[in-house]
């Protein structure tokens, strides 16, 4: 039986038993709708407020990143990755840098790994804060959102100290960072680590055991572990369904094996579980940042790979080798080995993978992004069929579908 027939059958079963007014209406939710938080279109068949079937249209902000990447030298692809999941750009940037480092076989100093972990975990906190506070908004609790966005601003202030940008960060380079953490960075980070948990606990107290919120979210948009795996779910959405798959543990990158943290899992895969998994992950991320900051190794903030990492400007003007390397890197003339690699990192929404094929030329021969949003958003109709329209909105915001990552 095809998927469509299956949906129709489900719908028919619904109409005969729970008809509200017996008339099926077509409702166009999106493409621009204030409750979808992005450009998503869903054509719903509704009977009263019950959803009988749904069909998504995606691609509204497709920007041909994979094609663009085939014309850009390796270091010019990092800004493209910013625009995938723009709630946690640093994770995307570093995932890309690590992919190239894997291709060229570069070893990073421990310090670079720890610095990356700090920035990536900050990004994860920012990503989860947006998602969870927006779940609050969609249930009618605007207060938490306003407070959590202030905290997110502080994370952006911290980004600004390491890369100068806030949203599309383009942080780091192939081979490490372009500068070390400065004093301001450490001061701001320590202030954040001190003040944030209190405010975050207040936010948690508003919603986590709130009877109204629990009644509203428990059982909304559930998915079983088996179906979630079949749909290749990853990240918090998969863990909410009860599968403890986390790339940081399964295929550790950037020295994640050095840190002590837990992987929270849910049970029912519903909106409440997704919310709670993200809440706990924020707490675990804070733990990781503390450990990284306390055990920060001494050393260089970049690897010793002169043919990929720009030399300091003073040397470019005073030494021959530096000038040559500078020129070659900027013009994209560095020799790159042939080969193909797949590298994945745990993004805000799950396994963010980069499949890179190099033919030795100045640009990738083929680059494919495994975008978790794109893969799990296809389960959306299955998750909302039979539920109320307001639950569909909640399900979408708790899945954290980001248009930039969905459409690439």
């Amino acid at each position, binding site marked *: 039986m095809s998927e*469509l027939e299956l949906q129709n059958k489900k719908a028919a079963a619904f109409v005969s038993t729970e008809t509200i007014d017996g008339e099926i209406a077509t409702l166009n939710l999106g493409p621009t709708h204030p409750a979808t938080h992005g450009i998503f279109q869903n054509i719903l068949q509704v009977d009263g407020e019950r959803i009988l079937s749904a069909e998504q249209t995606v*691609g509204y902000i497709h920007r041909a990143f994979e094609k663009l990447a085939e014309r850009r030298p390796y270091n010019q692809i990092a800004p493209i990755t910013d625009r995938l999941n723009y709630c946690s750009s640093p994770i995307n940037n570093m995932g890309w840098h690590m992919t190239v480092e894997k291709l060229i076989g570069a070893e990073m100093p421990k310090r670079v790994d720890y610095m990356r972990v700090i920035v990536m975990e900050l990004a994860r906190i920012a990503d989860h804060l947006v998602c969870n506070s927006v779940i609050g908004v969609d249930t009618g609790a605007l207060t938490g959102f306003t407070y959590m966005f202030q905290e997110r601003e502080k994370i952006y202030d911290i980004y600004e100290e390491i890369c100068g940008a806030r949203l599309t960060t383009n942080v780091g380079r192939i081979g490490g960072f372009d500068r070390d953490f400065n004093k301001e960075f450490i001061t701001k980070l320590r202030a954040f680590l001190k003040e944030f948990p209190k405010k975050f606990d207040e936010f948690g107290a508003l919603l986590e055991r709130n009877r109204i919120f629990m009644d509203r979210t428990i059982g909304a948009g559930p998915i079983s572990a088996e179906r979630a795996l079949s*749909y*290749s779910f990853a990240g918090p959405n998969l863990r909410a369904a009860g599968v403890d798959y986390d790339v940081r543990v*399964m295929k550790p990158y950037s020295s994640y094996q050095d840190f002590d943290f837990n992987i929270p899992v849910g049970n029912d895969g519903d909106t409440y579980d997704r919310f709670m998994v993200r809440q706990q992950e924020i707490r675990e991320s804070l733990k990781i940042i503390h450990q990284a900051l306390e055990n920060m190794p001494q050393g260089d903030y970049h690897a010793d790979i002169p043919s990929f990492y720009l030399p300091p400007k003073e040397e470019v003007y005073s030494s021959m080798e530096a000038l040559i390397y500078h020129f070659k890197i900027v013009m994209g003339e560095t020799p790159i080995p042939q080969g193909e690699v797949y590298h994945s990192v745990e993004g805000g929404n799950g396994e963010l993978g980069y499949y890179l094929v190099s033919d030795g030329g100045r640009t990738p021969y083929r680059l494919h992004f495994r975008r978790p949003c794109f893969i799990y958003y296809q389960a959306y109709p299955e998750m909302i069929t039979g539920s109320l329209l307001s639950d569909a909105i909640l399900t979408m915001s708790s899945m954290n579908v980001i248009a930039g990552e969905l459409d690439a």
Partner: protein
Amino acid sequence: MSEFATKIKDSILEKYNNTSYELDTYGEHNFICSKNDIHAVVEFLKNEGFIFLTDLTGSHYPESEGAEFQVVYHIHNLAENVRFRLKVDLAQNDLHVPTLTDLFAGANWMERETFDFFGIIFEGHPNLTRILNVDDMDYHPMKKEYALEDETRTDKDDTFFGR
């Protein structure tokens, strides 16, 4: 290479004669399967615990004759933590490969994306239509013959920069 990976590798090579295997320098397990076997191989792997279809995509190699297109699968056994990469070579004039949607629900959109960008036809797919590009587009844009920039432009000269 873990004992488990070796065992599975050996039984695949034994069962499906047209399959070749290579462990690359990055430590990844690469299989090249024939398109007639791919569905059976994936089904076999799924029964052996490879329950997570990480990624499915395509690539275009216009230079390699008889194998101009390739479909690339990444499939992960979560319990044993082993990931295999399977590839299927396709000739330009016959871009048909069986669908995996009956094994993995998530293959649906990944196959549609591959169809959209490369024109590879997944036989038995329930709804093989364009997904990210507009419906009335009449070509498959990730093929190498479509240059990114308009080649009729004369105001840009990049000859000296190796492009």
